[in-house]
């Protein structure tokens, strides 16, 4: 094949441009740390990267949901503990009041203290988390109990759900009506009966029914604590699992998107060497021609 100077320089130029092209792509990988900068770099990889990014975003959101539910249930747990403490105090007082040695005045004093404790229990029933009443069912903006004689429950009985995984929902709240009851039922009604019996000096009722009723109420609270605690355990497990999944997804995303620095660096050095030798060879091939060697006259 007949080779002309123009062919040489054209080929040299296009080879140099090809080298530069590769160098610039490698340099971009090095400086951005990304293997994938455009969908056309690897269309299939891009679709996986988008999927992993979506998975990651969803996972992080579920972790936020778990944290949020966990905080809610911690607040619930604290309130339930305090209610439980107050209730145990009430039980001691009732045991004391049920004793036949207690006279009318002693029983009235006990009744007064229990009335105080009712208020403090209702105050716990009004516990808020981030501005929301945790025992009000889904009427979270309504204060469920009023202080004083009225025991009306203003919340509702709805158990709210939180999503902690794809279609995995847990019960979030304990409602006031099941834990504390109201005028007509539950703990508050029991306590009001106890107070009435104390004031009425009704020792028989105190000894027979009231103590049993208080034990039932204590059981209800313990039960609520147990349910809440179990739910918190579940949240913790879910949280740990989500963190592990996040690590895996991050790893997968990095495998698809991120450049292998060691390999890219080696590629870069190789391409640089090729480019430099192409330049050197070009400088030596292109320059001389027959004219340099014909005697000038």
């Amino acid at each position, binding site marked *: 094949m*007949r080779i*002309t100077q123009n062919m040489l320089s054209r080929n040299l130029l296009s080879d140099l441009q090809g080298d530069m092209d590769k160098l610039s792509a490698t340099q971009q990988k090095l400086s951005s740390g990304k293997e994938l900068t*455009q969908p056309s770099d690897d269309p299939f990889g891009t*679709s996986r990267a*988008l999927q992993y990014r*979506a998975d990651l975003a969803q996972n992080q959101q579920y972790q936020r949901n778990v944290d949020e539910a966990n905080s809610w249930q911690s607040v619930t747990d604290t309130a339930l503990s305090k209610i439980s403490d107050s209730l145990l105090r009430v039980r001691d007082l009732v045991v004391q009041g049920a004793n036949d040695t207690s006279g009318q005045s002693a029983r009235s004093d006990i009744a007064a203290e229990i009335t105080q404790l009712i208020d403090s229990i209702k105050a716990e029933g009004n516990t808020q988390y981030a501005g929301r009443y945790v025992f009000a069912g889904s009427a979270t903006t309504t204060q469920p109990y009023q202080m004083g004689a009225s025991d009306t429950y203003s919340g509702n009985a709805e158990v*709210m759900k939180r999503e902690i995984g794809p279609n995995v929902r847990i019960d979030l709240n304990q409602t006031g009506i099941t834990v504390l009851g109201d005028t007509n039922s539950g703990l508050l009604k029991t306590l009001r009966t106890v107070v009435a019996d104390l004031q009425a000096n009704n020792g028989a009722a105190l000894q027979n029914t009231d103590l049993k009723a208080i034990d039932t109420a204590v059981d209800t609270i313990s039960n609520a604590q147990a349910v809440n605690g179990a739910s918190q355990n579940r949240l913790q497990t879910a949280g740990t699992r989500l963190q592990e999944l996040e690590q895996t997804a991050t790893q997968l995303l990095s495998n698809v998107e991120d450049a292998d620095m060691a390999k890219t660096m080696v590629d870069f050095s190789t391409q640089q060497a090729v480019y430099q030798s192409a330049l050197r060879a070009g400088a030596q091939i292109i320059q001389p*021609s*027959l004219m340099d060697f014909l005697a000038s006259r």
Partner: protein
Amino acid sequence: MPLSTFMGLETTLRGILAQQLAINVTGHNIANANTVGYTRQTALLAPTDAYSEPGVSRPPQAGQLGTGVDVTSYTRMRDGFLDIQYRAQAMKQGLASATKDGLTQVQDALAEPSDHGLNSLLQQYWSSWQDVSNAPENLATRQSLAQNAASLADGFNALGSQLSTIQSQTGQNVLSTIDQVNSIGGRIAQLNDAIMKDTVTGDHPNDLLDQRDLLIDQLSQLGNISVTATTYGQVDVSIGGASLVSGATASTLAESNMTSLTSGKLAGLITLRDTTIPGYQSQLDTVASTLITATNAQHALGYDLNGNAGGTFFTGTSASTIAIDPALISNPALIAASGNGNVGNADNALSLANIRNQALVGASTIDTAYSQLVTQIGSDTQQAQRDTDTANLLTGSIDDRRQSVSGVSLDEEMTNLVKFQRGYQASARAMSAMDEMIDQLISRTGKVGL
């Protein structure tokens, strides 16, 4: 047989003149070594007619006597078959590189994979619904949802309008390319005319032919052309099935004339404008309209903070028209997060967040449908880049072969220069020898005893 005394002088003079002409051709080649489209020329040297005395009774002698040399023609060193191959490749190159340029623009508009592409906006939007489900009473989370929904809508709008812009730019590019086709057609017709005038007088208008070949090369990048040689060195050129040049007449073509464009830049641009980009737009519109319909249907099932049934969430019907209902931005309490009207209930927010997991676009979710669009644009672009690389490589290699035949090699020209210069010198030396012989005859002959 008597020969003229001066015949030798004439023979050597022919040698001198022919070498000189050959040196001129060499000079022309060297001068045009870097001219694009130039084809190297050679002076074809041939012996002039031999001297022989006609006649039946011519005296016996040793054959015919040569009378020197003459330049019979100046020839372009060009292989027409390589031209055909080159143009066939150039059409493919034009198609591939136009497609690549357009698709690269589309791909840049996507900005994927990144933290600010539509994929991220979708994730933020879904997450916002979850955030609302964590605190449905909270106006701040609702406001943030409304803002993220607005950003998502903006993202769809921006991508939709960028696709439209690229489409209309491609349309303008089609028009300017057709202008280019017509302008090249006009110049080819003019050259045809000039070539015809030279050819009828028996000339070889090499440089005009070079110019015309270069124009045809350029034209082949723009569309699928066919070139037919006609009389007096003229060519007829048609592009995309429409006659562009016929003899010395050029037609002004419009897009509608070129009914069978299959290759070249024009075919690439028209496919982008009429098929590829509208295809992407309709896929994007499907994603957007599915999101709008599904969200609005679910939103209407819920209740806002005031216990009223939910209204519209997204307005619009396509990627370029999607927007969040402005009422929700000004009053995020109207977002229907509750499933039963209770403020703490967030069932509807969860249902809305879970639209992401539903197969609503064929068998795909909204996220997957978008990711499929990105993957498709990515693989189309990758394909176009590969086609372009291949076409560049092939045109390059065919052009090398063409250059191998037609290109000017300076080494070769220098060798020719030496060769012809020596030929010139030798002819001159032969002439001197003749001169000395004649001098002998004129000045010395007959001077016996003087």
